[in-house]
């Protein structure tokens, strides 16, 4: 057996084990851990996956995913909540049927994503990064300024109006956990399938050689726009799940901090492999929880500061030492094993980290 097949096999085994653990997790861990760490890790993982999908297969590092998540959440919240006594006071309070609202919110986000993508499809590298950042900022300022749909105050109650097939997730957190888990697995399978389709393959071709693909007759801009739309779809799912999980939307959801946070998660996990999304999210949340609980009010010892300093240093270390994140460390481990096997093995394709070659 070659090293490569061993690696794939090991990954499959680990993946199945992780899935099994995830399924039985409610029986193993406390309520807080299930709700605040695991469910949140799954949701952030889906969001990070939308980012990593674009970066791994398209070479596009997008900071718009948080904004799209927020748009989906806000759209759902505004459509679904109603004006009832003792009820909500913020937002449009349209009171639509929850299933309809769910579909509408996702479609709206995808439409906006396609529009964003169309404008951004002609930019590459750094320009693309900055452009997508401004998209999120536009969305953030929009919901913050337009008090009709929210404003600074939270738009609440969205988790009380869920579609029938979702059920009561405000009360039953286990149910929400399983719904999130199913969505995460489905999205993962979807992306794995997508990248093997002709669209996916040409998309990866555009990542590697945009000029050559253009000269072969592929519509580069269209491919990138569509891919951005797919990313928007995944981000919309994350946004809707987030709205159900958190119960409230406020502009902070798509602020600069949240955007950087998602980027940090994706980079820690690994921008090259979509499995990194959940790995990064879990690592981030666990570190966050541990550090927050242990830092005294006066800040970190010696240097002062909060969890942000800690994660900043970790992020810096990862970018310098292992730009492909944790999945990159995993890949390099196998690389080492492969090299031990002898100098005749060829270097695999795409061995440069995603952020180095640009």
């Amino acid at each position, binding site marked *: 057996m070659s090293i490569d097949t061993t690696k794939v096999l090991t990954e499959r085994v680990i993946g199945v084990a992780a899935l099994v653990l995830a399924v039985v997790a409610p029986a193993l861990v*406390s309520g807080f851990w299930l709700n605040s760490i695991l469910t949140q890790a799954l949701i952030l993982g889906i969001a990070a996956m939308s980012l990593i999908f674009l970066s791994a297969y398209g070479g596009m590092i997008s900071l718009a995913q948080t904004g799209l998540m927020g748009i989906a959440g806000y759209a759902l919240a505004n459509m679904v909540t109603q004006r009832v006594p003792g009820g909500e*006071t913020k937002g449009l309070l349209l009171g639509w049927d929850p299933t309809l609202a769910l579909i509408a919110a996702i479609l709206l986000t995808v439409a906006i994503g396609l529009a964003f993508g169309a404008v951004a499809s002609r930019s590459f590298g750094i320009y693309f990064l900055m452009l997508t950042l401004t998209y999120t900022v536009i969305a953030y300022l929009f919901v913050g300024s337009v008090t009709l749909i929210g404003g600074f*105050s939270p738009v609440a109650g969205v988790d009380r109006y869920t579609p029938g097939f979702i059920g009561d997730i405000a009360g039953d957190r286990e149910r929400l956990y399983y719904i999130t888990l199913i969505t995460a697995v489905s999205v993962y399978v979807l992306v794995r399938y997508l990248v093997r389709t002709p669209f996916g393959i040409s998309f990866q071709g555009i990542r590697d050689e945009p000029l050559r693909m253009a000269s072969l007759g592929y519509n580069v801009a269209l491919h990138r726009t569509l891919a951005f739309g797919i990313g928007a779809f995944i981000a919309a799912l994350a946004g809707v799940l987030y709205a159900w999980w*958190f*119960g409230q939307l406020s502009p902070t959801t798509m602020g600069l901090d949240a955007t950087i946070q998602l980027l940090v998660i994706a980079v820690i996990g690994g921008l090259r492999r979509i499995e990194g999304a959940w790995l990064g999210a879990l690592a981030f949340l666990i570190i966050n929880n*541990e550090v927050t609980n242990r830092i005294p*009010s006066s800040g970190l010892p010696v240097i002062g500061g909060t969890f942000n300093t800690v994660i900043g240093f970790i992020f810096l270390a990862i970018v310098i030492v*292992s730009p492909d994140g944790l999945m990159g460390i995993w890949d*390099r481990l196998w690389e*080492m094993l492969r090299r031990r096997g002898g100098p005749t093995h060829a270097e695999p394709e795409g061995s440069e980290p995603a952020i180095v070659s640009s």
Partner: protein
Amino acid sequence: MKVGRWKLLLPLALLAVGATIATSGALASSAQSSEVKFAIMTDCKGAFAFGYEVDTAGTIAALSQYAGAKPKNKKKPSAGMTGGKAGGKNLNLVGIGCGDETPALALKETRRLMVQLGADIMIGPLSGDEAVAIANWAKQNRSKTVIIGTAGSQDPTMQIAPKNVFRYHGDGAQWNAGLGEIVYKKLGWRTAALIGDDYSFPWTSAAGIIADFCGIGGKITKRVWTPPAGGDYAPFVRQLPRPNQVDGYFWLVGGANTATALTAFEQAYGPLKASQHSGNLFLYFLGANTTVAPRLVGSYVGGFGTFQTGGLKKAQARAYVKNASKWFTGQNVNDGFFYNYWNAAWAMVQGLNKSKGEVGVALQTRLPRTLKPGFQVANNGVLRLDSRRQAIQDQYQLQITKASGTGSVTTTIAGYVPNVDQTFGGYFGPNKPAPGRNFPPCVKKKLPWQGKVKVVKNGVITNQVIK
């Protein structure tokens, strides 16, 4: 190759250690019922960062006074407390929440404190929109009890009003009761413009001013709302009428932007004239007292529900000051942040005593519906909660004055309004919209305390009314 190996092994080792620590945390469960777990929710970031120590001081001081607790460090309240028993059970302060005014972080901290660390009672939060988020959460978590610290938004006890949220102090509108009448009568204002941040606390705060000022016959000719995101204030300030077109201005811009907005005003219209400016507590608190207040000596500003300057000559107030000052050094016990958290903690102790240490609904039915806080004068010094667990509280309006000797500025109490209720005598209500950009409208209406604002001189509430 050696370096390369370390690049791999070190992170892997760290990961393994981290995972072990983490999973041990996940699997551990806690099950204690011989103690009462509670938490304090306050801010440690943003404009209210100072609240962290002050709010904790107020809480722990009250618990020391009424539940036999002891501060661990007289100079640093956030060090925590030892001891403390109420209703026969030990009190356990599981954590102090660190918010930054945003609802998202407040909710995250609430979950950490009340779900992960298991607190059943929360004393807090500090700021308006945080309380809105937490009240919404509390609605779906009836077994948890929230006693609001100093948050001034109207919604938590009016439109949302879940049965497990209590507030023993006034909201932002109540804090400003009487201010509109004072400027109408003492400064002769008949028309005024209003400028504030575009979110719920300034709206609520403005609502209180508008109700009073318009109620007695004044007119608000323009309302300008500035985006919390900041930017350049000059164009916004130009939206205001010129100083010769209006009698006065009400300022409700806070946080980092109070000084900015007032500077922008000066750059547009010339030096500030104190008799033309008033506003809510932002004008004095939050560090504005160094940058802004010196230019506004003589202005009347909204209060905070306390006898902020100290020296109220009533036995109940003197007893409060004496008791509150025993426990920490360097704390101003007259300050609203300290006072309101003290009262919340005191109420918690009374409730627990009555419920014999039971929390949840048992506690919620037994939390006191009356309280005798230091600065309540009307009703024989008894503060009452209304049907939505919201305090009907005496209010004290302030005037910015120069401190004798040091040359810095301070405030004196200028007016007293008894028994201000949250509805302002029917102006606001749970079925009415929450305060917003254009709500309430400027209408003439007789408020219950109209014409009854008392003059306060040197700590004595006189019988004269403000003329």
